[in-house]
C-alpha cells in the first residue's frame, strides 16, 4: 500500500481530532492569569502551586520565542490555544474497533501491536474493550510493595507536596526557555515517579499503563526521581500513530539521579507529521533534562523520533556528581515535509564524568533534519570524557541533513571526540543485497536498520522490535 494513501486516511482522522468541543469543562482559547487559576483550581492544587505557575507565566511574558533552530514554521498564536479541556467522555469516543478507520488498523497490524492495545491507541473508549482497572490494580500493588511511587503529576502535587516542592523545576528552571516557561504555567498532565533508596523498580514503567493516560496532555510535565542506588527504566510514547487533538506540544521532563542511581528514559515518538506540505502536523517542542546529582549516577536517554511535523528537542544531562555518566542514543527519521532539530547537551561539571552520544539521522522526501549538540566541559571536570558519533543518511536528492555540534572545552585533562558522516545508501551495498535475491525495498530496510543498530540495541526489547517495524513504515515509498 502506498504511503500517501495511508497518510491520507490517517490525516482525515486527525482533522476531526483537532476540533475542540466547547463544553462547560473547557476554557475558551486564550491565556491569561485567569486561565492559569482555572487550571490550578480544576486540578485542586494548593496555593503555592498556583503561585509557581503564575511566576512562570510572568517570566514567559517577558521572553521571546526562539528563532535559532534550523526550522521553518509560521508564528504560533498562543491566544488561539485552549489550555484546558476535560477528558473526553466515553460516549464521544468510537465504541469499538469497527468504528475505527480500517487503514489505521492496518498500520497497527504492520507494527505488530497487540489487539487490545490497538483499541486504546485508536481512541476507543477503553472500558469497552478491556478492563484497564484490573490490569492497573495488579500493577499498582506490585509497585506499592517495592515502595515506588508512580502516579500522575496532578496526584503527586496533592499527595506528595514535599517531594514536588523539593524537586519540581530544579532541573529545568521555570524560565529555562520559552517553551519550558509556558509549560510551567499551564501544564495539565504528566507522570511522577519516585524510586526510594536502594530500590530497583520491578518493572518497566510506561505512561501507557497509567490509569489516566488515555488523554495525553498537550503540556506534559514529567518528573522522575531516583534516590541513592535506585534504578528505573521509563518508556514514553508508543510506536503507533497517535491520535491527538492538540497541535502544539510543549512538554518538560525532569530527571534527578542521586548517588549511584540509574535512570533509563526511552521515547518512541510517532505523532501525526502533517500532510504533504507539512500542514496540520504536530509541533513537538520539548525540554528534557536529567540531573546526575549524585556521584556515579547515570542517566541514559534513548529516542526514536519518527513523527511530528516539527521536532525540537535536546534531551540533556547535567553531570554534576563525580564520575557520573550521561548517554544519548537517538534515531530520527524524517520524511515528507517533516523538520527535526534535535540532539543533546552534555554538561560536564564533576570530576571524571563521562558522556556518550550516538545520533543517527535519516532524511527522506523533502524533509530537513539537524543534529544540534553541545558538549561542555567545565574547568573542574578533571579527566572528563566524551565521545560523539553522529551519522546522517540521505534518501532522495530533495532532503537535507545538517550537523551543528558545539564543543566548549575548558579543561586540559578532558578528552572530547566528535565524528560525523553524511552519505547515502551505498550503491555497492544495495547491489550486494540485490545480487543475493533480496528485493530493493527489503535491502534498503536492512541497510537502514543496520545503520540504526547502535541505538536500537539500547531500547527495551519490545520497543526495539516495534521500532524496526516503525522505521520501515515511515520510510515506505521513500525509496524508488
Amino acid at each position: 500500500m502506498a504511503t500517501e494513501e495511508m497518510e491520507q486516511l490517517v490525516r482525515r482522522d486527525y482533522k476531526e481530532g483537532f476540533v475542540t468541543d466547547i463544553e462547560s469543562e473547557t476554557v475558551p482559547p486564550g491565556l491569561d492569569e485567569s486561565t492559569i487559576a482555572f487550571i490550578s483550581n480544576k486540578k485542586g492544587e494548593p496555593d503555592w502551586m498556583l503561585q509557581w505557575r503564575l511566576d512562570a507565566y510572568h517570566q514567559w511574558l517577558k521572553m521571546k520565542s526562539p528563532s535559532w533552530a534550523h526550522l521553518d514554521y509560521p508564528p504560533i498564536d498562543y491566544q488561539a490555544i485552549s489550555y484546558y479541556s476535560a477528558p473526553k467522555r466515553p460516549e464521544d469516543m468510537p465504541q469499538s474497533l469497527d468504528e475505527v478507520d480500517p487503514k489505521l488498523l492496518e498500520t497497527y497490524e504492520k507494527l505488530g501491536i497487540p489487539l487490545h492495545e490497538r483499541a486504546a491507541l485508536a481512541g476507543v473508549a477503553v472500558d469497552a474493550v478491556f478492563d484497564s482497572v484490573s490490569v492497573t490494580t495488579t500493577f499498582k500493588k506490585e509497585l506499592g510493595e517495592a515502595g515506588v511511587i508512580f502516579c500522575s503529576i496532578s496526584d503527586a502535587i496533592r499527595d506528595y507536596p514535599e517531594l514536588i516542592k523539593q524537586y519540581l523545576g530544579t532541573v529545568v528552571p521555570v524560565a529555562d526557555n520559552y517553551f519550558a516557561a509556558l509549560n510551567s504555567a499551564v501544564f495539565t498532565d504528566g507522570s511522577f515517579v519516585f524510586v526510594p533508596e536502594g530500590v530497583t523498580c520491578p518493572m518497566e514503567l510506561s505512561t501507557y499503563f497509567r490509569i489516566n493516560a488515555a488523554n495525553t496532555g498537550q503540556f506534559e510535565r514529567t518528573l522522575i526521581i531516583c534516590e541513592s542506588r535506585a534504578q528505573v527504566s521509563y518508556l514514553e510514547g508508543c510506536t503507533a500513530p497517535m491520535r491527538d487533538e492538540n497541535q502544539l506540544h510543549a512538554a518538560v521532563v525532569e530527571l534527578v539521579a542521586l548517588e549511584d542511581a540509574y535512570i533509563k528514559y526511552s521515547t518512541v515518538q510517532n505523532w501525526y507529521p502533517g500532510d504533504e506540505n507539512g500542514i496540520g502536523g504536530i509541533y513537538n517542542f520539548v525540554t528534557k533534562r536529567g540531573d546526575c546529582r549524585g556521584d556515579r549516577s547515570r542517566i541514559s536517554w534513548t529516542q526514536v523520533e519518527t513523527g511530528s511535523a516539527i521536532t525540537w528537542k535536546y534531551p540533556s544531562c547535567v553531570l554534576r556528581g563525580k564520575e557520573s555518566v550521561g548517554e544519548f542514543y537517538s534515531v530520527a527519521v524524517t520524511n515528507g515535509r517533516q523538520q527535526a532539530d534535535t540532539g543533546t547537551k552534555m554538561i560536564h561539571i564533576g570530576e571524571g564524568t563521562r558522556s556518550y552520544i550516538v545520533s543517527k539521522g535519516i532524511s527522506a522526501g523533502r524533509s530537513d533534519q539537524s543534529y544540534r549538540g553541545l558538549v561542555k566541559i567545565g574547568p573542574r571536570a578533571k579527566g572528563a570524557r566524551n565521545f560523539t558519533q553522529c551519522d546522517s543518511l540521505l534518501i532522495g536528492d530533495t532532503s537535507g541533513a545538517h550537523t551543528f555540534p558545539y564543543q566548549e572545552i575548558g579543561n586540559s585533562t578532558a578528552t572530547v571526540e566528535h565524528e560525523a558522516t553524511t552519505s547515502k545508501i551505498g550503491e555497492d551495498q544495495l547491489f550486494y543485497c540485490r545480487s543475493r535475491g533480496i528485493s530493493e525495498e527489503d535491502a534498503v530496510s536492512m541497510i537502514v536498520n543496520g545503520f540504526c543498530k547502535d541505538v536500537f540495541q539500547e531500547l527495551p526489547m519490545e520497543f526495539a522490535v516495534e521500532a524496526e517495524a516503525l522505521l520501515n513504515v515511515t520510510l515506505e515509498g521513500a525509496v524508488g
Partner: protein
Amino acid sequence: MSEVIHFLDVLKKRLAQRGSEPTWIAARRQAGAARFEAMGFPTRRDEAWKYTNVRQIAQGHFELAEDADYSSAKAAALTLPIDAYRLTFVDGVFSARLSDMEGLPESVQVMPLSQALEQNHEAVGGPLGRLTGVEFSPFSALNTAFMEEGAVIRLAPGTVVDKPIILQFVSRAGEQPVMSHPRVLIEAAGRSQATVIEHHMGDSDAANFTNLVAEIMLDRGAILTHYKLQEAPLADLHIASIHVEQRRDSRYTSYNLNLGGGLVRNDLVTDLNGQGAEANFYGLFYGQGRQHVDNHTLANHNAPRTFSNENYKGILDDRAHGVFNGKVVVKRDSQKIEGFQSNANLLLSDRAEIDTKPELEIYADDVKCSHGSTTGQLDKEAIYALRTRGIDEQTARGLLTLAFAGEVMEQVDIDAITERVELAVAGKLPERFNLAGLVEIAAAFNEA
C-alpha cells in the same frame, strides 16, 4: 552606539582630507558606512560571534596612521628571509621604500590599492566588493567605508609566477593606537598559478587594529596558494574576511598559521562554483597568554563534483581561548561532492579553552561528507617514553606538540615559515631536533 560614532567621525575627517573621488567609490563607501552604522558592532548574542567579544575593538579609540615611517633594519629583521616580491604596508600605509617588485614579469600586475583607485583602474571597478559585500559583517562594512589601501594582484592567463608574492603588514608601537582597513584583491585568470604570502607582524609592544578584507577570484584551472602567517604583536587586534570564488577546475589552498595577535578573528569563505574546483584549508592556531583566536571557515559547494578538505589544529596554552567553526554547505543538486573537515585541539593548560563547532549543512544525497573533532592533551606515556631516552621534559613536550601540528605543517613547503612555526610552538629545540638541524643531518647523510 557612541562606539560606532567614533569610527564614523574618523571616517568623516579622513574623507574631508581626501577630496573628491569617482562616484562609484564614494557610493560604495557610503553604503559601507550606512550598513556599519545600522548594524553596530556584533555582540555575543550574535551566533557568529558567540565566543568572541569585540569590545576591545569597539572601545579602542583608534585613529588612522598618516605615514609609513619604519626603519629598514627593523623591517628586515621581521620579514621572511626568502626570495620573493614584496609589498609592505606600515599601519596600513603603503611603503614604496620597503617594497620590492623588481623583476616582476609583465603578465603579473601587483600594485597598491591606492594607486589602482587613483587611476580608477579596471582591476578595481568591477571586482571591488563583488565577493565581500557590506552585508557580510559589520567589519566588512567598516572596511568598505574606509578602504583606501591594500594590494591588487592580477595574473594574466597561463602565468606561473616564479616567486612568492609577499604582502607584509607591519604594526608599529606608538602613543596613539591606529587602525587600518586593508583591502586585497586577487584575480587569477585561467590556468595561472601563484603563491601569495600574507604576513602580519610588528613591534612587540604595538596595540593596533587591523581589519582586512580579501577578495580572491580564481578563473578556470587557476591555482593559488595563500599563506597567512599571523605574527602580529600580542596586543594587536585583527579581523579578517577572506572570500574566494572558484570556477571550474581551480584550486585554492589556504595555510592559515596563527601565532600572534591578541584578538584574532578570521572568516574564510570559498564558493566552489565550477565542476572540479577544489579547496584545501589548512590551519594551525597557537595561543598563549590571553590570546583569543577565532577561525570561521565556510565551504559552499555550489556545483557538482567539487571537493573541499579542511584540517585545523589548535594548540592552546596558559589562558588562551580558541574558537573553531567550520562549515560545509552542499547546495541542492550539487551531487558527487566530497567534503572533509577535521579539527583537533591540544590543551596544554587547565585555564585554556576551546570552543569548536564543525558543521555540515547538506541538501544533496550523492555526497561523501564527514567531519571529526577531537580535544585532548599530550600523551603522558609518550612524554615518559621520550624521557627514558634522555630527552628533557621541555624538549619532549615541544617535540610532541610539534608532532601534533605535523599533519598541517608537513603540507607547508616554505622552510622559513616552518621554522617560525616550530620556534613558536615548540620553543628553541636542540639542533638535532629542529628543522635546520635535521636538514643538515640529512645533507650530511646524503653526502656520506
